[in-house]
């Protein structure tokens, strides 16, 4: 394949998923400029390794690279921050009773409050939620991108949603 043909095929196959790439990078780095840097680096890296792409979901393939680039970047630039290690076995989701105030909290949560709550979640929950709720990916795809089992995907989504709910409730009870 000539250089031009290779580039054109890459632009047709992979670049349409740049929004998804930027979105994931944006939620993992929590910052526009960093997300742009990471997304760009990931795309160029994907182009270098384009020969290894074996068909299948180009989006999942690209997002796997974006995610790895993100974590490498976060590790290098923000060692103290962010990557709260999360032991799935220790952190059990708390069962909460009395749903009413929470229902209200959810209904009242504006975009900004929700964004903040999502940004405060541990990375593993946040990425699962981003891939599921914003990118509409299947559990199988999420499992591939994040390199964990289907069961782990399911439990991360459950815990992520539960935590998000709790933090919105807490936020709103502070606000009123």
């Amino acid at each position, binding site marked *: 394949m000539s250089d031009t043909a290779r580039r054109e095929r890459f*632009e047709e196959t992979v670049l349409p998923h740049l929004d998804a790439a930027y979105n994931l990078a944006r939620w993992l780095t929590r910052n526009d400029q960093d997300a742009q840097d990471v997304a760009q680096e990931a795309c160029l890296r994907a182009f270098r390794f384009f020969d290894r792409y074996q068909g299948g979901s180009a989006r999942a393939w690209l997002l796997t690279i974006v995610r790895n680039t993100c974590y490498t970047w976060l590790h290098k630039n923000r060692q103290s921050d962010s990557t709260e290690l999360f032991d799935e076995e220790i952190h059990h989701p708390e069962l909460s009773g009395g749903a009413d105030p929470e229902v209200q909290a959810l209904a009242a949560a504006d975009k900004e409050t929700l964004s903040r709550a999502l940004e405060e979640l541990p990375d593993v929950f946040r990425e699962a939620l981003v891939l599921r709720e914003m990118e509409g990916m299947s559990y199988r795809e999420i499992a591939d991108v994040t390199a964990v089992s289907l069961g782990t995907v399911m439990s991360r989504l459950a815990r992520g949603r539960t935590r998000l709910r709790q933090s919105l409730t807490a936020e709103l009870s502070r606000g009123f």
Partner: protein
Amino acid sequence: MSCDLTQHFVPGYMDGELDLVRTIEMETHLKDCPVCAQKLEDQQGVRAVIRRSSLAYVAPAVLRGRIQSSLRASAKTDNEVRESGIQWRSLHVFRWAGAVAVLVLFSLNGWQLTAPLRETFTDQRLAAEVFSSHVRSLEANHLMDVVSTDQHTVKPWFDAKLDFSPPVEDLASNGFPLVGGRLDYLEGREVAALVYQRRNHFINVFVWPDSNKTNSIQPVKSRQGYSIMRWSRDGFQCWAVSDITGSELAEFIRLLENYNSSEPN
């Protein structure tokens, strides 16, 4: 099915990721168990609120442009390697052809001949990049990062963003008002893009430092109805592109150049 198990499968159930047997088991259990039903409702509530809020970010147009330029640049580097290979081979031919003195003479000549040729290749490639940057800036609705007709606003804006300080002039009195600027990406580096207006047409002027060039102006080229011009001055390489006529663009550049030479630094 126990509550423990049910609660474990709640997300898979509501996301439609369970197999048929498990789905039926879940449905049966949820009908009779208010605790698990509540759990399901909670999860659905969060999912709904995230989806409703459309939280997904969209990649900025400038990022898309930068990536495309980089992809093109990386393909080009390969071409340049090949190009220099050809020169090396043609040198070999000379080497076989004659005596050492002749070789020295010829290869010198050969080098002088290929240098302008190489320049033309680079120019053609750059013209293509400049052209696509111009089109992209209009298509992607990303013409300007800083919107101002005041050169004293635009210039400091660039100074803060770039590692060089591009000359910025307003030619409003000559019918070419400055309308703003943005950062763009050419030749694998960040460049200043100044935006001028001529009636309803826009002119993009790309500027970046280039110490190798002596002051010069190339004639206007046209490409798919657009006029493109390259010139160098005071250590900057400049390119202008627009859909105005070639003669208007030449006039614009002449004004820009005069403005500069009349400016007391």
